[in-house]
C-alpha cells in the first residue's frame, strides 16, 4: 500500500500549538507511508487539489488527513480522494484540532499526540478495504409529527411539491400554540385569521393525510424507507360519522372538565371540540371527565348525536405507514412555574401564565375577549407582567432565554391598553431582547405610545392584600425598591421542550439536549437536519423560536425532504455489519441485541447461522461487541482495524 499523509495547519488553529511539519516528518517513517507533507488548509480548494495531485503523482492508494473533526470534513475529503480515482473508504482522518490543538498548549506534547493519532490512522488505513454502497428505492411520502405552525408549513410545502404527507398531531386539532394566541407581534394581527386558512388548507389538501389525536408509536427502518406505527387514540367518537355539529358539547352534563385548549381558564365539557376553527372539527371525549366512564352511566351525548357517532367502547387503533423522510415539529410547552414560591407557587388565582392571558384576550376565548380576572371576574386596572419566569434562571435548571417572551409581553401590554383604555401595565424585565425586523420599534412603542411602565429588576415577592396583589421588586436602574398593587399578574413563563420529546427522540433515534430540545446536525450549517439521515426538524422543538422563524424552519425542513425524496434511489452506507459464516456458531446473540432488527437467522446445511440485512443495518456495532466469536464484524471498523489502532498507540 502507498499511503499519503497530509497534516493540516487549519491556519493557526492547529499550527499554533502543533509542529505540523514535524508531525509530517515523523509520519513519513510510518509503515507504508509513501508521501507525507503539511498543508495550510486541507479542506480549501488548493488543499484538496494538492491531495489529488499527490495521489496521481506518487501513485498513492490510501490517504490520511490529520485536521479537524470528521463530523464536518470527512465527506469533503472522501469526495476528494474519489475524484482522484480512489475508493472513498481508502481514506482516514485523524482529528488533531478538537482532540489536540484546541485542548492543550504544550507544543511538544501536542506534536507528540498528533503524531500518535496519525500513526493510528495509518495503522487502520493499512487494513481498510474498498467498499461500495448499494442503492435502494425510496418511498416518496413524508411524515410530519406535530401540527403546530411549523409542522403545518412543512406539510403544506411538501404536499405542494407533490409529496404525499402524513401529519400526526397528538391533540384533537392541529394549530399548536399559535391557535391559542389572540394577536401576534409585531404587527398585532389576528392569530387565528392568519393561521385558520392554513389549517383549512391542510384539511383540504389531496396529498395530506391528517391523523389528529394520534401519536407515533414506533419507527423502524432507515432513510428512504421508514415504517411508522401510529396510535390513533380512542376519542370515543367515530370521526367518519361526526359532522362537528357540536350538539353533544351543548348537552354534556359534565361541565367541570379541565379545558386544555383554554389553558384551564374556565371549565369545559367532557366531550369537546377544542375551538370553533378546529381542524378536524370533530368531537372527542375526555374519559377522565366523562360520566359514562367516571360514574358508569350517562349516555347523553350518544342520545343527542344525530349521526350516532358516539362509541364508548372505542379502543386505540393503529395504522402503519411507510415514509421516506420524517419532519419532527413537536414544538414546546410552558415550564411548570409553580416552583416559584415568590410568585405564590400557584396559590393565587390572579397570578396567571402568559398563555392563559392570551385566552383571556381572545375574542373566541372563554370570556369572549373581555379581560376578567379569575378570582372575582372583575376587570383589572393595574396589570403587572413579570418576564423571564423560568428563563435565564439556572436555579431552576433553565439557563436559556426563551426568545419570544420579551416580544409577546410587549404585545400583551399593548392589547391590555386596547381592551381596557384606562388600565396601566407594569413590566418587570431583566433585559429587553428584541432583535428582528420591526421588533425593537415594537418594544419602544409599547412604552412610548401605550405608557407601559418598564421596570428593570426582579420580583422578590407577591402577596395578597385587600383584594389586590402586592408585587414587591427592585428597580435596579433607580436603585430603589418598588411595590405595585396589581389586580392581575401575568407571568411570562418560559418554554421547554414539548412533553414526551425525549421519548419521541429515542423512537426517531435522534439526539436531544439536556432540556429535551432536538439536536440539529450542525448548529450553523445543518440547522434543520439531524444526525439521523432522513429525519429533519422544524420549529421550536429544536429550540424556542417565534412564529416567523418557526415557519421559515418548517419550509426549510420541507425543502430538505423534497430534495431527499426527489431521488428515486438512495445509496446505502456500506459501513455495516457482516457475518463470517465459517466462524458463526448460530448462537443468535446478535439477533437478540440488534436494536434495528437487522439480523436474521438463516439455515446453512441444517445449521442456524446469522445474516445481516444490509439495508436495515445501521452499523451501530452492538452485534459486533456481543458476538463471542468475532464472527460478526463491522466493515470499516473490524476488530483487526481497531486492534491495529490500539497496537499503534500502545507499542511496547
Amino acid at each position, binding site marked *: 500500500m502507498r499511503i499519503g499523509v497530509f497534516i493540516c495547519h487549519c491556519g493557526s488553529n492547529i499550527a499554533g500549538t502543533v509542529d505540523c511539519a514535524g508531525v509530517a516528518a515523523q509520519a513519513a517513517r510510518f509503515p507504508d507511508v509513501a508521501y507525507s507533507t503539511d498543508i495550510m488548509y486541507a479542506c480549501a480548494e488548493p488543499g484538496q487539489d494538492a491531495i489529488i495531485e499527490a495521489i496521481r503523482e506518487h501513485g498513492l492508494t490510501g490517504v490520511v488527513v490529520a485536521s479537524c473533526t470528521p463530523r464536518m470534513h470527512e465527506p469533503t475529503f472522501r469526495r476528494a480522494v474519489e475524484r482522484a480515482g480512489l475508493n472513498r473508504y481508502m481514506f482516514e482522518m485523524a482529528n488533531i484540532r478538537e482532540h489536540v490543538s484546541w485542548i492543550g498548549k504544550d507544543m511538544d506534547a501536542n506534536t507528540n499526540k498528533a503524531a500518535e493519532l496519525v500513526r493510528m490512522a495509518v495503522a487502520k488505513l493499512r487494513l481498510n478495504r474498498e467498499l461500495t454502497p448499494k442503492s435502494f428505492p425510496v418511498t416518496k411520502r413524508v411524515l410530519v409529527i406535530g401540527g403546530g405552525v411549523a409542522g403545518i408549513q412543512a406539510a403544506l410545502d411538501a404536499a405542494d411539491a407533490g409529496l404525499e404527507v402524513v401529519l400526526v398531531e397528538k391533540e384533537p386539532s392541529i394549530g399548536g400554540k399559535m391557535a391559542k394566541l389572540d394577536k401576534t407581534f409585531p404587527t398585532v394581527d389576528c392569530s387565528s385569521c392568519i393561521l385558520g386558512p392554513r389549517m383549512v388548507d391542510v384539511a383540504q389538501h389531496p396529498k395530506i393525510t391528517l391523523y389528529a389525536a394520534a401519536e407515533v408509536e414506533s419507527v423502524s427502518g432507515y432513510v428512504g424507507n421508514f415504517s411508522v406505527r401510529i396510535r390513533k387514540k380512542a376519542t370515543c367518537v367515530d370521526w367518519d360519522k361526526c359532522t362537528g355539529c357540536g350538539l353533544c358539547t351543548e348537552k354534556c352534563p359534565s361541565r367541570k372538565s379541565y379545558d386544555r385548549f383554554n389553558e384551564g381558564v374556565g371549565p369545559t365539557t367532557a366531550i369537546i371540540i377544542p375551538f370553533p376553527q378546529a381542524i378536524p372539527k370533530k368531537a372527542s371525549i375526555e374519559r377522565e371527565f366523562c360520566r359514562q366512564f367516571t360514574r358508569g352511566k350517562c349516555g347523553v351525548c350518544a342520545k343527542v348525536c344525530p349521526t350516532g357517532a358516539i362509541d364508548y367502547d372505542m379502543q386505540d387503533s393503529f395504522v402503519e405507514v411507510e415514509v421516506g423522510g420524517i419532519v419532527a415539529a413537536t414544538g414546546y410547552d410552558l415550564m411548570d412555574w409553580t416552583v416559584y414560591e415568590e410568585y405564590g407557587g400557584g396559590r393565587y388565582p390572579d397570578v396567571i401564565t402568559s398563555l392563559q392571558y392570551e385566552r383571556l384576550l381572545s375574542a373566541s376565548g372563554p370570556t369572549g375577549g373581555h379581560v376578567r380576572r379569575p378570582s372575582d371576574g372583575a376587570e383589572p386596572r393595574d396589570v403587572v407582567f413579570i418576564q423571564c419566569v423560568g428563563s435565564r434562571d439556572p436555579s431552576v435548571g433553565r439557563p436559556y432565554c426563551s426568545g419570544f417572551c420579551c416580544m409577546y409581553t410587549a404585545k400583551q401590554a399593548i392589547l391590555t391598553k386596547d381592551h381596557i383604555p384606562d388600565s396601566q401595565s407594569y413590566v418587570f424585565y431583566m433585559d429587553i431582547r428584541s432583535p428582528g425586523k420591526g421588533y425593537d420599534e415594537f418594544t419602544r412603542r409599547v412604552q412610548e405610545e401605550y405608557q407601559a411602565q418598564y421596570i428593570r429588576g426582579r420580583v422578590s415577592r407577591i402577596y395578597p392584600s385587600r383584594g389586590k396583589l402586592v408585587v414587591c421588586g427592585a428597580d435596579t436602574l433607580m436603585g430603589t425598591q418598588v411595590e405595585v398593587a396589581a389586580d392581575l399578574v401575568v407571568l411570562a413563563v418560559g418554554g421547554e421542550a414539548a412533553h414526551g420529546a425525549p421519548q419521541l427522540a429515542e423512537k426517531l433515534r435522534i439526539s436531544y439536549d439536556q432540556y429535551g430540545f432536538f439536536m440539529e446536525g450542525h448548529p450553523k450549517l445543518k440547522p434543520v437536519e439531524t444526525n439521523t439521515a432522513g429525519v429533519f426538524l422544524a420549529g421550536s422543538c429544536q429550540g424556542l423560536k417565534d412564529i416567523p422563524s418557526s415557519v421559515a424552519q418548517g419550509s426549510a425542513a420541507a425543502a430538505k425532504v423534497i430534495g431527499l425524496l426527489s431521488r428515486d434511489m438512495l445509496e446505502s452506507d456500506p459501513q455495516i455489519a457482516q457475518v463470517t459464516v465459517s466462524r458463526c456458531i448460530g448462537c*443468535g446473540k446478535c439477533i*437478540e441485541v440488534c436494536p434495528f432488527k437487522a439480523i436474521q437467522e438463516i439455515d446453512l446445511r441444517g445449521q442456524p447461522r446469522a445474516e445481516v440485512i444490509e439495508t436495515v443495518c445501521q452499523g451501530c456495532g452492538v452485534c459486533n461487541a456481543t458476538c463471542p*466469536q468475532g464472527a460478526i464484524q463491522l466493515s470499516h471498523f473490524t476488530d483487526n482495524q481497531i486492534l491495529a489502532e490500539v497496537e499503534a498507540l500502545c507499542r511496547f
Partner: protein
Amino acid sequence: MAIEQELQAAVKAALPELDCIIGWGPGPDALRDAPLFLRDAADADVLRAGFFSVNNPALFLPEYKGRKIGVLVKGCDARSVGQLLLEGLVRREDLFVIGFPCSGVIDAGKAAALIADRCEAGELRSVREQGDSIVLEGPDGAFSLAKKDVRADKCERCLFPNAMDADLFVGEKRAPFAELDEYADLAAFEQAPLEERMAFWEKEMSRCIRCYACRDACPLCVCRDQCVAVARDPHWLSQADGIRDKLFFQIIHASHLAGRCTGCGECERACPMGIPVLLLKRALSRRVETLFAYRAGIDMQGRPPLLTFSLEEPRIKERDW
C-alpha cells in the same frame, strides 16, 4: 447409599426414552468421580452421585443439541443448564433433568493436603460418605474427615443447592448452608488499592501455562474451536509469552461470561496451576447483579442483560425520566 440407588433406578426407567444420560461414575482416584455417559441401562449400577460428583455435566449438553439427553444435576449444574436454555444453546424438550439434594462437593485439593502425611490420593482404596463426614480407606486403615473441612468454597456460598426446574427430583430438598453474603470475600478483596490488585493478578497470571483448561471446563464457553484465544482473524491475542496476553485472555473470558457465569467454579477447579480465575468472573457477576438485578441461570423468564438491547435500564439512570 439410598439416594444413589434411587437415582440408578430412575435412570434405568428413563433411559429407554433417551439417547444418553450424563451423570458420574468412578474417576481417576477415590476422591474424584468422573463424568459418565450411560447408553445402556445395564451399566446403571456404576452410576454415582454425591459428594465426589464434582464435574459439571452441563458442559457436554450443547454438543448434544438436537438429541434426547438425560442429565443428573446438582444445584450449580442446574443453573448452568438453565443459562444454556435461556440462551437457546440447548432445548428444553430435548432434556430430561434429574435433580437430587446436593450437600456440597469435595475440593480434592483440600482433601489431598489434609491426608498428605498419611498417603496420596491415588493410594486410597475407597472413600464413602457417612453423614457429615467422609470415611477414607487408606493403606494403613480407615480414617474419616469432616465434610466441612474438605468442601469446595463455592458450596459454602451456594444459595441454590437444589436443582430448579428438574423433571424428576430424587430425595429431600435441603436448605443452603448459610444465608451469607455471597460476595463478602470479593468485597474484602476489592478493598485493596488498584495497584495491589493488579500486582496480585500479575503474580497469579505469571503461572498460567495457557492450556485453556479453564475455558474448556466452562459449560458456558460455547465458541469451542472458534475461541478468540486461538483465532488469528480477528487477532485479539498474540502468542507472545507474557503476562499481558494471559491476563487479557482471562479478562476476555470474564467479560464473555458477564451475566452468564453461574459461578459453578469449574474453570478454577480445572486450572492445573491453581490460579483463582473464578474471582474475576464473580467480580463481574456481582456488578451484573447490582446493575441489572440479574443472576444467571435462575429465572427462566429472565433475559440475560448483556444479550438484549433496551434503551433504558431501570437501575442505570442516564436520564431523569
